[in-house]
C-alpha cells in the first residue's frame, strides 16, 4: 500500500471524485493552477480543466453562495476556504442557506452535493487568525454535517464519503498534520462512514473522546496514563454532526469516566454538548465528573501558544484527576 501524507491523501480523494464524476468541481482562493496554498488541489486543473478546478475571486461569502447555487443545480462542488479562520464571512451562506435549503423547500431543492473543505487548528505559530477551530460554531446548526479526519487514511475515506453524501458536509482538515501525518493509504476508492465514531483503543478505566489533530495528542497522553496503570478507551468522534452518541455512551457505561478534549475555547465548545448529553444518558454510571481539556477562553495566542494548547500533559492530568476523584 502506498504511503501518503494527509495532503496527498486529500488530493488523491479529490482526484478520484473528479475522475469518476464530471459534476464534481473544486474551487476557492488560489485553488486553480497553483493548487491551493497548501497544495491540496495540485494538478487537478491540469487534469480536469479550468472549468472544473479554478481560482475564485477573494470573497468567501461569494464562494459559498456560488457553491450553494451550483449544488442546488445538481453539481457537486467542493469549495475550499483557505483557512477555517476565514470561513466567517460565509457564515450566513452556510448557516442560513446551506443548512436550511432542503428543509425550507420541503426537499424541492437541496444542496446535498456540497462539501466545504477548510484547514483548521493550531500548533503552527499562526496566532489569532491562522489557528482557530470553529467546529462548534457550526455544530449548533441542524442541516449541516461536520467531519474531521485524524490521519491520511481517514482523510481520504471520509472526504470521499463527504463528497458523495446526500447532505452538505463541512470537512475540517487538521493543517498541523497536513505534512506531519504520514501513513498507508490504499490507492483505490473507499469510503468511511459519516456519523460513526471509531473506538481506536479499548480500555476499561476512562474514556477519552476527541477528533482531528487532538487524536495524536490523546495518544501521547494515553501512553503516559497507561504507564500509571490506567486503562484508557479512546474514541475518535470523526463526525461532530451528527455525532455518535451511542458509541460514546456505551463506552462511558463501561468505564464510568469521560475526558473530552478540543483546541477551541472551552465555553460553548463542543465538549460541552458531549458532556451534557452523556451525563444525561450515563448519569448513574458516572464515577467522576466529565472533564474537558480545551483551549483557554481567549483568542488564540502566539508566543504562549504551547501554554494555551490542550496538550498531552494537560490531558494526562485530567485522566489522573478523573480516576482519582
Amino acid at each position, binding site marked *: 500500500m502506498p504511503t501518503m501524507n494527509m495532503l496527498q491523501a486529500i488530493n488523491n480523494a479529490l482526484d478520484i471524485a473528479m475522475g469518476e464524476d464530471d459534476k464534481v*468541481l473544486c474551487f476557492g482562493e488560489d485553488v486553480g493552477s497553483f493548487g491551493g496554498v497548501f497544495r491540496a488541489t495540485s494538478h487537478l486543473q491540469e487534469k480536469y480543466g479550468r*472549468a*472544473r478546478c*479554478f481560482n*475564485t*475571486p477573494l*470573497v468567501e*461569502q*461569494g464562494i*459559498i*453562495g*456560488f*457553491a*450553494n*447555487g*451550483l*449544488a*442546488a*443545480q*445538481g*453539481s457537486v*462542488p467542493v469549495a475550499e476556504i483557505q483557512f477555517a479562520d476565514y470561513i466567517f*464571512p460565509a457564515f*450566513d*451562506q452556510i448557516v*442560513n*442557506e446551506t443548512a*436550511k435549503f*432542503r*428543509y*425550507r*423547500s*420541503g*426537499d*424541492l*431543492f*437541496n444542496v*446535498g452535493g456540497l462539501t466545504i473543505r477548510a484547514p483548521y487548528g493550531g500548533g503552527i505559530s499562526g496566532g489569532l487568525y491562522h489557528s482557530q477551530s470553529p467546529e462548534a460554531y457550526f455544530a449548533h446548526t*441542524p*442541516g449541516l*454535517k461536520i467531519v474531521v479526519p485524524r490521519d491520511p487514511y481517514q482523510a481520504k475515506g471520509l472526504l470521499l464519503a463527504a463528497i458523495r453524501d*446526500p*447532505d452538505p458536509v463541512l470537512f475540517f482538515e487538521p493543517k498541523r498534520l497536513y505534512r506531519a501525518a504520514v501513513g498507508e493509504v490504499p490507492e483505490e476508492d473507499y469510503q468511511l462512514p459519516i*456519523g460513526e465514531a471509531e473506538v481506536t483503543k479499548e480500555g476499561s478505566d476512562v474514556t477519552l473522546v476527541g477528533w482531528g489533530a487532538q487524536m495524536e495528542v490523546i495518544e501521547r497522553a494515553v501512553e503516559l496514563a497507561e504507564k500509571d496503570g490506567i486503562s484508557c478507551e479512546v474514541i475518535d468522534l470523526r463526525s461532530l454532526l*451528527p455525532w455518535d*452518541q*451511542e458509541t460514546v455512551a456505551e463506552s462511558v457505561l463501561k468505564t464510568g469516566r469521560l475526558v473530552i478534549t478540543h483546541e477551541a475555547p472551552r465555553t460553548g465548545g463542543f465538549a460541552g454538548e458531549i458532556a451534557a448529553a452523556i451525563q444525561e444518558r450515563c448519569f448513574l454510571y458516572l464515577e467522576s465528573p466529565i472533564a474537558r481539556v480545551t483551549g483557554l477562553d481567549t483568542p488564540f495566542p502566539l508566543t504562549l501558544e504551547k501554554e494555551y494548547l490542550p496538550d498531552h500533559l494537560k490531558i494526562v492530568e485530567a485522566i489522573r484527576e478523573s480516576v482519582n476523584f
Partner: protein
Amino acid sequence: MTTTADIHEPTFLAGDEFSIPTFRLLQQDGTLHEGAKAPELDQEQALAIYRAMVATRVLDERMLAAQRQGRLSFYMQCTGEEAAVIGATAALDDADMIMAQYREQGALIYRGFTFDEFMNQLFGNELDYGKGRQMPIHYGSRKLHYMTISSPLATQIPQATGYAYGQKLAGDGQCTTVFFGEGAASEGDFHAALNMAAVHEVPVIFFCRNNGYAISTPSIEQFAADGVAPRAFGYRMHVIRVDGNDILAVYAATREARRIAVEHNQPVLIEAMSYRLAAHSSSDDPSGYRSKKEEEAWREKDPILRMQRWLGDLGWWSDDEEKALQESLRREVLETMKRAEKRPPPPLDSLVTDVYADVTPELQRQLDALKRHIRQYPEAYPKGARALDPDVQADATAAKGEK
C-alpha cells in the same frame, strides 16, 4: 486589464463622464413613444402576460384583505411592479431558472403556478410543498424552475451565479435570472455575485427591481449613485436601465439580455425603475415615511392600465373581457382560499424530515419524545395532535377526503 492613457494632472473622475438613460417603449396612454418599436409579441403571448398581471393584482388585493381579516398571518404585494416581474419572466425560456427575492409572485403566475398552489403555501397546510415551514409568500416550484424563496436578503444572488455556472457546464442552453430589490443590492453578496459572474463568464441576468424603497428607507439613503446600474461598470458587465412599468420595454430588454447571457456566456444587469405602490408588507404602514402625493403620482403610472390600453388599441382586449377576467379571478381566489384554509396541517413528522436526507437517530429520538408528550397533552397542541393522529378531529379527515 487596465487602460494605458496617461494624465499629468491629478484629475478625479466622479461618474459625470457618462449617463445611463432609461429604455422606454410604451407611454402611459397605451401608445408607443415616438420612434419606439414594439417587440415581437403575438396576441396569445401578450394576453398571457396581461392575464398574469391582472391575476397577480387580484391575488394580492384579496390576500391582503384576508390578512386584514385575520385569516392569514402575513402577506406581501407585488402591486405596481407587475410589469417588471412578468415582462422579464415572459422573455425567458420557461425552463430557465428564476431565483426571486419575495415580491415576484407574478413570475410564478405567468409560469402556471395555480391559485391552489399559492394558497397551500400561504396557509402552510399539508399540501404546501414547503410543508408549512416558512412564512406566507415563500413559494417554490421545482417543475416551474422557481427556486424556493429564502428570507435572508441577497443570498440568492451569488447562488444564481453558481446555478448559472452549472447550467453553462451542462450546456443545455439555459440561464438563470435573479430578482432583487435596490435595497438588497447593498449586501455584500451582491458584490460577490456580480464580480464572480463577470470573471467566470456566467449566463445570469441580474434583475434589480428599483422600487424606491427598502421598507422605510428611500433609495437616496441606500446609495448616493445614480441607481444601481452604474455598478455594472465596476465588473465589466452589460447593463441597461428600463422603465419597469413599461411591459414592452421590460420584455424587450430582458429578451436581449437573455440572448447576451446564453449566446455569449455574459452576465447582464437590468435595473427596472418602478415603485412599490403598496406597503412593504402587511406588517408595514408607509404613511409614516412617504407622502400620499408621491404614491398618487406613481399610481398614475400603473403598469397594468398601461398595457390594457395598448391591448385595447390593438383590439386584443375589451372592457367586457376585463370585467369577466376580474370576476372569475376573484371567485377563484376566494374558492381556493377556502379550500386551503380547511386543509389539515402537515404531519408531525414534517418537523424533523428534510433537515437531512434521512432522519438522524437523535432527531428520531426527539420526535419520539415529542409524540409521547403530545399524546399526554393533546388539547395543548391541536395541530400536532391532529397531525399526529388523523382521527383526532373529524374535519381533518374531511379535508383529507378532498385530495
